[in-house]
């Protein structure tokens, strides 16, 4: 009898402990949310960013320490996450309507959805006293219906990175400035036995750059904006853009097996380029560093030229395409969160990041902090931009953006026509 009662006590105790364990977890979460702005002036700010590796991680950490030293009542809890982890983790927490106080954003369509779900704070008034120190091109991606919902800390652009040595081998002395020159150069490279272009077909997003740039050059920036508003891409210019891309695809300019190639894997697009196995890639400002990481540094052999103009197109050859990064603030975040963003946007603080080469100047007057020779090439072209378009898979709502990536991949693989691409993107936009 005695031994039985002892056993039942243990049973109950175990069950109680387990239950307490479950309940405790939930209470802990709730407590954290409430602990944001407590009465005794102590404030905890949660910040999720995507610079989980050097060289940017230590820069943010030291800025956080500096800010905390200046504001002893503020504690900033930093969670650096790898990009894909960040996206899925943020999706999960925002489903419960509880976003971190400050979190990374690329602006565009995802940010607009978060605005619609009232997850993010309208910063227009809060930052009005200093928002003119930010680069207007960079800021534009975080504006929805004329209101600002994010503060940029990085801005870059996509263009052709090319191997000067291989160009010379094929007898090309200057980078092309028009699409027909570009196609001629591709033919010359092929004739010289050189793979003209490296492309990551598996990743899809690098392929969408081609269609997006062609759409910008042929139809113009306004047409792309209008298409998103009217939810219709039914514009002959977009079909023309697809046809221009098809002209390129028909030349078979990509490396063998490009449909299965990833971007930053050992045999991906960046490595193919870095190993000198292809003459160009259309890629963002980070291209040289990924080439270096996956293969080798091409050094002075690596050049950069903006996407060529299309003859008779409505878009300017100086319009740029790209994106960067910024921070959004949760709707219920304490005012210190905005103050911290102001702090990291001070020119002297922003310079520390720019100097590492990991981010590009998003604050006016920090352009001279760019040290890297490749980065300088990008900053120079970007500085002369007359217009700017955010990556289409960011600018549009996610379902439309992914459809652009998908459809363009199908065009490049030869399974869809330029007309079908436009029809599919329109269908996705209308089901949104």
């Amino acid at each position, binding site marked *: 009898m005695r031994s039985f009662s002892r056993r039942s006590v243990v049973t109950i105790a175990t069950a109680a402990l*387990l239950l307490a364990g*479950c309940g405790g977890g939930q209470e802990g979460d709730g407590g954290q949310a409430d602990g944001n702005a407590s009465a005794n002036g102590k404030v905890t700010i949660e910040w999720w960013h995507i610079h989980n590796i050097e060289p940017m991680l230590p820069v943010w950490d030291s800025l956080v320490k500096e800010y905390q030293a200046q504001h002893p009542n503020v504690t900033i809890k930093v969670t650096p996450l790898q990009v894909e982890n960040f996206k899925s983790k943020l999706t999960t927490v925002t489903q*419960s309507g509880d976003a971190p106080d400050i979190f990374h954003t690329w602006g565009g369509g995802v940010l607009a959805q978060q605005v619609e779900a009232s997850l993010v704070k309208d910063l227009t008034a809060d930052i009005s006293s200093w928002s003119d120190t930010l680069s207007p091109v960079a800021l534009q991606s975080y504006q929805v219906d004329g209101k600002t919902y994010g503060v940029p800390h990085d801005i870059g652009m996509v263009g052709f990175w090319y191997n000067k040595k291989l160009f010379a081998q094929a007898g090309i002395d200057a980078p092309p400035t028009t699409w027909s020159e570009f196609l001629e150069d591709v033919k010359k490279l092929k004739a010289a036995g050189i793979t003209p272009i490296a492309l990551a*077909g598996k990743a899809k997003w690098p392929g969408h750059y081609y269609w997006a740039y062609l759409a910008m050059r042929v139809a113009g920036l306004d047409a792309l904006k209008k298409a998103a508003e009217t939810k219709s891409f039914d514009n002959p210019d977009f079909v023309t853009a697809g046809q221009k891309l098809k002209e390129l695809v028909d030349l078979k300019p990509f490396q*063998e*097996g490009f449909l*299965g190639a990833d971007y930053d894997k050992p*045999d991906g697009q960046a490595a193919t380029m870095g190993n000198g196995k292809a003459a160009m890639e259309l890629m963002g400002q980070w291209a040289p560093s990924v080439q270096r990481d996956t293969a080798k540094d091409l050094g002075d052999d690596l050049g950069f030229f903006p996407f060529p103009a299309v003859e008779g197109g409505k878009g300017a050859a100086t319009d740029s395409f790209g994106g960067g990064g910024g921070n959004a603030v949760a709707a219920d975040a304490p005012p210190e969160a905005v103050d911290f963003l102001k702090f990291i946007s001070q020119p002297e603080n922003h310079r520390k990041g720019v100097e590492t080469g990991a981010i590009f100047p998003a604050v006016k007057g920090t352009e001279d902090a760019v040290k890297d020779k490749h980065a300088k090439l990008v900053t120079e072209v970007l500085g002369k931009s007359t217009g700017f378009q955010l990556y289409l898979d960011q600018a549009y709502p996610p379902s439309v953006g*992914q459809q652009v990536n998908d459809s363009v991949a199908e065009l490049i693989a030869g399974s869809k026509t330029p007309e079908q691409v436009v029809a599919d993107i329109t269908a996705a936009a209308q089901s949104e």
Partner: protein
Amino acid sequence: MRPQTLADKRPARPGPRRARTAPEREATRRGGRLRGLITVGLFLLPALVLFVLLVLAPIMLAGYSSFFKWNGFGFLPTNFIGLDNFTRMFADPIFLGDLQRGLLLIVLSLVVQLPLALGLALLLNQPLRGRAFYRLLFFAPYVLSEVITGVLFSMFLSPERGMANHLLGLVGLESLASTWLSDPSTVMYSLFLVMTWKYFGLHMILYLAGRQGIPKELIEAAQLDGASGWKVFRHVTLPLLGPTIRISVFLSVIGAIQLFDLVWVLTEGGPIHSSETMAVTMFDYGFRRYQVGYASAISVVMFLISLVFALGYQRFVMRRDTEGAITGMRDLR
């Protein structure tokens, strides 16, 4: 409560004890049963709570969201659209393709992978030098995580620098060199190759265990009756392996229906959707396109397919295998 020591225990050991009357015994028995039920209930409770929270609730939630158009933001969906997600799904060439590709994988698994595993299992059951080593070697891929396997094979099958084409070249089979995962017409077979490499070890071990459970006497008896090797296999080994084969087919089919991680790492469903599975399509819509309602509808269909298959299979194919277990439980009651 002080810790129990040997001294405490000693008096509880069988010794001279007062005899109990019959009604007393009956009362203790009934009380014991009640207390037993309470104990069982208490022990089950934590697991039950977790099961409801982590298994039942998500299923219900996915079922609920599948009737809505929802981008996943906000607490619960609000835009009710009835069965639209489902009608859209069955008109979507990608989803219909998923079903076809799933079927292809199931057929290939049953026709190629399982016989291969069975053959190896029977081979490794023979007296053979280094038998344990081979068993370990063939089982090893199953222990590897899907992601590691995926990364390994994406390097192995890389058209430019991959070892597969290099090896083919070494033995003079350059003509067989291929772009493997990069070509829509070969990607499913390349994927199946990786799947087979990854999972045949599990089935082999299952068969091996099943084979070792067959009493030697039966086989000896058949041999004494003059049965040849093939006849012994066909009329003794194979029928007695029945339960194992049925389980292995079941695991194989369910695995093919839910295949995700390997495909994701190897191809992300590409090129141009030619290796996409239901789970990959679901992930794409849920986490990339933020159409959580539609993704939930796909997950519901996946769940139903698995459920119907699992129940039907157990009811009609595995009835004889599970009957023993059920009657066994009935006896306990």
